[in-house]
């Protein structure tokens, strides 16, 4: 996989577009700030949410079993998937059992993570994503660039062109209302024809065995209300203990995600409709391994609001696809290295450690601290380029020996003063790509101090 800096540089080639992307996401971040500041007890809510999640993770096995028992009592069929392959196989076998060939799917980052669509298509099953953003990128054959707004990287002109080609809307049309209406009409057919509906899960309540799905478009309900079979896919970390805890999270989720007081639809599913079937697939896929890492376990508190992504100054200027992982941005950069450290070794470095992510996070994940810790592990396990490690070793030696340090500083300043510009700004000088070096002074502070305070 190409490293993040290379893909980021490519994204920045079109600076005007990068600016547009940055502004669009900053707008969402600003809306989030406003919504958060309207709740006087915001910080208490965050603390509460964090503690509920910490507690739940500390006895996740018990809660998962509670959840399963209650779901079974409700007449729901529960499946356990160890990894992505098992998840896909299970879904396919459910569909086969119910002779379902046409599937509608509402937004689920888990099924993206497992690459379910491709798998089902190989097995001759038609899958239509029904979240508008997801549908757009599905038509383009692209992965999502954001977990809440999957098509945020596209301009309305591009959506207009895509719909013109695939849905026969008028050429050049860009009016969002017109385009959305076209998508609605198109999706309506899929909803009516669907045999099965798949959804993601925002919260699974151990006490009741029910699952909660939050959408703005009502597409999860359209799907599940019409199809004979409903399937809900969830990661093991979606559990919360009791219904009374739900309010803490729903108050935080939509405000953090888009600045709305709540999502338009908060749908609770407990049991199958008469004559229909309901399945829940509970997926691990590396999560229990993350749970076993003391330094990173609390990344599983994540409720996928996307706030850390919106606030990330690097994400906003490099786009979701530059991360090459299903979940981009800061949270993706602490989750994905756990799956494949070598492949994703550039992601924990795609950050200035500014800490804005940790401060917007509604469940108080110490995201930037985990980025720092991943960096240490990446070096320890030998995934830092050798030259870099070597430079750091030398730097470490010089910077801990006053004599060497002073000599090195003097030499550097003298060189910088004496060398012609063309040599100083040679292609090897990455700093000098867009920046001047500081003008080297004749005297360091310590030299001045010696002369002025010690003599």
């Amino acid at each position, binding site marked *: 996989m190409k490293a993040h800096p290379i893909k980021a540089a490519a994204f920045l080639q079109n600076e005007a577009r990068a600016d547009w992307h940055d502004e669009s996401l900053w707008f969402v971040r600003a809306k989030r700030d406003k919504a958060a500041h309207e709740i006087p007890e915001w910080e208490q809510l965050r603390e509460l949410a964090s503690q509920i999640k910490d507690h739940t993770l500390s006895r996740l096995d018990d809660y998962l079993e509670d959840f399963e028992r209650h779901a079974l009592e409700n007449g729901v069929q529960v499946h356990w998937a160890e990894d992505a392959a098992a998840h896909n196989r299970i879904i396919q076998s459910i569909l086969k059992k119910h002779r379902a060939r046409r599937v509608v799917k509402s937004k689920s980052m888990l099924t993206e993570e497992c690459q379910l669509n491709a798998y089902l298509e190989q097995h001759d099953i038609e899958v239509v994503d029904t979240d508008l953003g997801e549908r757009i990128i599905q038509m383009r054959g692209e992965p999502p660039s954001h977990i809440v707004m999957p098509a945020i990287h596209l301009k309305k002109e591009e959506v207009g062109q895509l719909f013109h080609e695939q849905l026969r809307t008028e050429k050049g049309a860009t009016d969002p209302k017109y385009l959305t209406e076209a998508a609605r009409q198109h999706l309506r057919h899929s909803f009516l024809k669907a045999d099965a509906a798949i959804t993601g899960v925002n919260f699974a309540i151990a006490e009741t065995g029910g699952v909660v799905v939050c959408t703005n478009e009502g597409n999860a309900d359209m799907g599940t209300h019409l199809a004979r079979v409903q399937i809900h896919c969830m990661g093991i970390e979606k559990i919360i203990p009791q219904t009374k805890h739900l309010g803490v999270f729903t108050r935080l989720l939509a405000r953090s995600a888009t600045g709305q007081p709540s999502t338009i639809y908060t749908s609770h599913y407990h049991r199958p409709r008469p004559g229909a079937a309901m399945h829940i697939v509970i997926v691990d896929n590396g999560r229990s391994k993350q749970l076993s890492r003391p330094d990173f376990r609390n990344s599983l508190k994540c409720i996928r609001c996307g706030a850390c992504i919106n606030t990330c100054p690097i994400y906003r200027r490099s786009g979701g696809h530059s991360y090459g992982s299903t979940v981009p941005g800061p949270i993706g950069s602490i989750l994905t290295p756990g799956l494949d450290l070598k492949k994703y070794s550039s992601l924990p470095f795609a950050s200035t450690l500014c800490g804005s992510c940790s401060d917007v996070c509604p469940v108080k994940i110490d995201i930037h601290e985990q980025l720092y810790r991943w960096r240490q592990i990446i*070096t320890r396990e030998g995934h830092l380029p050798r030259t870099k490690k070597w430079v750091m070793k030398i730097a470490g030696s010089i910077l801990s020996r006053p004599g060497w340090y002073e000599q090195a500083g003097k030499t550097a300043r003298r060189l910088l003063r004496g060398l012609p510009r063309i040599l100083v700004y040679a292609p090897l000088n990455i700093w000098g790509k*867009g920046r*001047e070096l500081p003008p080297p002074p004749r005297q360091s502070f*310590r030299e001045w101090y010696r002369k002025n305070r010690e003599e």
Partner: protein
Amino acid sequence: MKTALFIPCYIDQFYPQVGIATLQLLERLGCEPHFPEAQTCCGQPMANTGCEQEAQESYQHFVKVFQHYDYVVTPSGSCAYHVRKHYDVLEQTEAVQHLRRNTLDLAEFLLQVLKIKSLDARFPARVGLHQSCHGLRGLRLGSGSERNIKEYSALRTLLNMVDGIEIAELQRPDECCGFGGTFAIQEPDISVKMGKDRIADHQRAAVEVITAGDMSCLMHLEGILRRQQSPIQVKHIAEILNSQV
């Protein structure tokens, strides 16, 4: 009270005037900080690159040099943060714990230890305040735009004590400048873009000077400003607090 001055390596080498301003300011306020000459670097550049191991020698050296002072004051929120936060990997001897409590950024030292309420300083210019991230979110020198708590900013409090200064309002009051230590070299394109965007915000606010509590951010911004041949100057907050025109 035995106070030591810690001057980060890049300030020592490239921005001696910031070290001088810090020292003079503290002396004017009745403090006599000592500059132990054996000091080098807190180890942050290595550690942030993932080379905590390679930084250990610097950590040990820092502890050796500074352990006998009551306070270590430094004109860098970032270095103070690094010592306080990341020296947790050292054996927590009394000396280490003492330094992790008492290594302070200049602004913290002025407001929390010296408890100054006013300053004899004058700086007649329109100034944009860059809130360096490690000071802001690491040391909590300000409330930050993310959290819903009572608004405060240590740097603003200090700047407000200066005569003649005019502080400009920015559209994004606390976005990162893109320096990030070795990030500036590892992700040069994003780093420069972030810096350009920060500068554009200050330019829209018509500032003459950009100030901050961390010279590293200003070194990055100054590099871009000079490449753009912009007349905007950068000044560490110590230089402003120490000016008497």
